[in-house]
């Protein structure tokens, strides 16, 4: 089943691939290039899942992750963190702040797509 995905990343070169990939997966896409745009898009676009980079202008990914989890109206939104911060500490932090998955760059696009599908399917089963 299809869903809405918000891609939050300031690197255009990875955004192009992610957009194409998720389109191919049949999802509706919206892109935010920084922390501010991301917060706006959360309200306007109401995504089911957010692909979230950590290093962003204005607000970093960890902060956005925490914001989503603290707001009850965004409770259903799934979060996949997608970042170049590969230390174990960063992974711990992301998961502790409520991310559903933490994927370090570089990653396999196939696995990413599968992960996204898995998470969205689980959530629709729950609902």
């Amino acid at each position, binding site marked *: 089943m299809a869903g809405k995905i918000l891609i939050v990343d300031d*690197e255009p*070169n*990875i955004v*192009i*691939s*992610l957009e*194409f*990939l998720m389109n*191919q997966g049949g999802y509706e896409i919206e892109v935010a290039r920084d922390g501010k745009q991301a917060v706006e898009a959360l309200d306007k676009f109401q995504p089911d899942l957010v692909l979230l980079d950590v*290093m962003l202008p204005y607000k970093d990914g960890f902060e956005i992750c925490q914001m989503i989890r603290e707001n009850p109206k965004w409770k259903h939104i799934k979060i996949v963190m997608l970042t*170049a*911060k*590969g230390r174990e500490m960063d992974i711990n932090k992301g998961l502790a702040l409520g991310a559903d998955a933490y994927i*370090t*760059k*570089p*990653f*396999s*696009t*196939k696995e990413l797509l599968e992960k996204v599908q898995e998470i969205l399917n689980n959530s629709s089963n729950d609902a």
Partner: protein
Amino acid sequence: MKTQFNAWFWFGIITVLLFLIFGGGAFLVWTNLQPQEKAYLLEFLSHHPAFLITPFILLFFAFALVFKWLMDNYFLPLEKILEALKIIRTVNPSHRIKVFTSGKLNRLAEDINLMASRYEELTGRVDEMIDSAKKEVEEEKNTLAALMSELPDGVIVCNMEGSVLLYNQQARRLVGNSTQSLNQQQASLAHPWLGIGRSIFNIFTKSMILHAMNDLLDRLQRDSTTVTSQFVTMVNGRLLRVQMVPVLDKGREMNGFILVLHNITREIETYRQRDYLLQVLMENVRASLASIRAAIEMIVDYPQMDTQKRDQFYDIIKMEAQRLSSELDQTVSDFSVHFKAQWPLENILSSDFLFLMQRRISEQCQVSISVEETDQELWINVDSYSFVQSCCFMINAIKEKLEVTEFRLSTGKEKRFVYIDIRWEGPPFPREMLASWYGKSLLIHGEGIPFTLKEVLERHNAEIWSLKDEEQQRNTLRIMLPELITPTPEVPYVKKVSELPEEFYDFDLFHQPGQTEELDNKPLSELTYTVFDTETTGLNPSEGDEIISIGAVRIVNGRILKGEIFEQLVNPGRAISTSSVSVHGIQMSMLEGQPTIEEVLPVFHRYAENTILVAHNAAFDMRFFHIKEEETGVVFTNPILDTLLLSAVVHPNQERHSLEAIADRLGIPLIGRHTAVGDALVTAEVLLKLIPLLKEKGIVTLKEAREASQKTLYSRLKY
């Protein structure tokens, strides 16, 4: 004064006695007379009273004259002789009695002077023996101090109370310098004070030291194999790693500790920057790789995509790959800066170095290298790895460009430089080739170090050029290095005894009682003093005269610490009277730009903290300080001793107690008088000589000295 008073008192008593004897005699005669004889006598005396009074008056004056003569010629000189004898016997064997007029005493004085000369000679010989015995012990101490001064780390030795017993220059440099003059560096106002006998808690927080001490005691109790404790702290903007090691006595009881200080500011900064570089590199590489990988996977996984989209992905791959290489280059060049910071050089004989080059270069470049032997001992200071790598790089380039496979290495000396020549026969060496090498990284087949030839040469203060001998087709590349005149020998260099500043150690402080004990009951010989003097614009502080110079020295355990002198000129903010200029020679122009008394007093206060203040005629100097109390907020609560008063206590029969007179009496040479520091030094020596003399008078503790001072006549002197 006292002696004279005593003498006149006895004179009075003897006079009264004499009158009593005469009176008694007269009374006896009177009672044995017949009544008519009595009447006759009364009759006679009432007509001629002079017969009764004159003998008495004459007798009295004759007696007074005799007594006065005896006083001046025997009793007072005798007292002086006694005092002089005491001086000779105790502090100054070369002191002599001034010769008097009276015959016998004159001979006595001369004989005593003769004896004194004998005595001086004798004590001199004994002193020599003691000195030579002491010398051995001193030398051992000096060896220790010398070893400490050669250590690259700062070392401070303390007793259990936290008083500093010993430190080296490195320690002083690491925590700040107490003798630094204010105007040199205003920041010294905030410097912690490191000095012998001073508390270590001036420098390190008390709780930190106590924690480390408890740690050591714990380890000692557990018989731990590593009895050291360590902490890191910030002192004066420097990050120091401090290691504490216990000083153990024979019974393995801790009776002090040693602190080893190591400056890790730079180290930590380098680590931090290196970590940061590495992290940035990793994150950027991950990001670029992610973009590349995702793009490639899109192209591969979705072959049906249109060409425009495909081209977009190709562009991404190209762009990110380029970004990746420039990222790597950037990191390598950033990294070399940090690597250079820890780029140590070592001392090596240039001939040994040639053999090292021969082995490594022939291996790495596959060329044949021969070495011309030399007997010259030439030392150079190099990082052998990067230096050999540089030569290797050049030889490899020559081999590839000019097809030369045989090289000769030689070394020699030219002026103050050592050269290393790389020579070969063959086609001439194109000069532009050398220039093209400078900026190149020294990588051979991708191996080596991330430096350019230029950087290596700069690090070694070296230069390179080429020489040509066209007829014989001989080429030379000459590398010039500065010659190392005094290479570090393998055995640590120990300074000669005389080169050592003597005040850097004082082991007797180990026996110092705790700070908590009442100062008043401490013997004078065990107190810590700040002996100071001031120069002023004039004599009347209440009429606006000001301090223009403060000089001070510290006495710890009976030793003057000449390495911890306080010397500071002060801008008085007013003119100096000409009469005072003639005393101290300080001109107004010398005081311009100097700090004001408001700035200097707090620093001096800190310098004198926890010590006894001593000055000659201290009341005078203290008046100047007291007047400034309100303005500066600095109040000197230290106990005060005055050498003028103490001298009067010791020698009440000497009329003169000026600093010159006392110094002369006690055999102290007068040097640098009428500079604040010069006078402070003389005063300090006077104090040290007075302490044993006071002891003979039964004045041992600070309290006793203060009370005795108060009693003397001079303390009534007020400015």
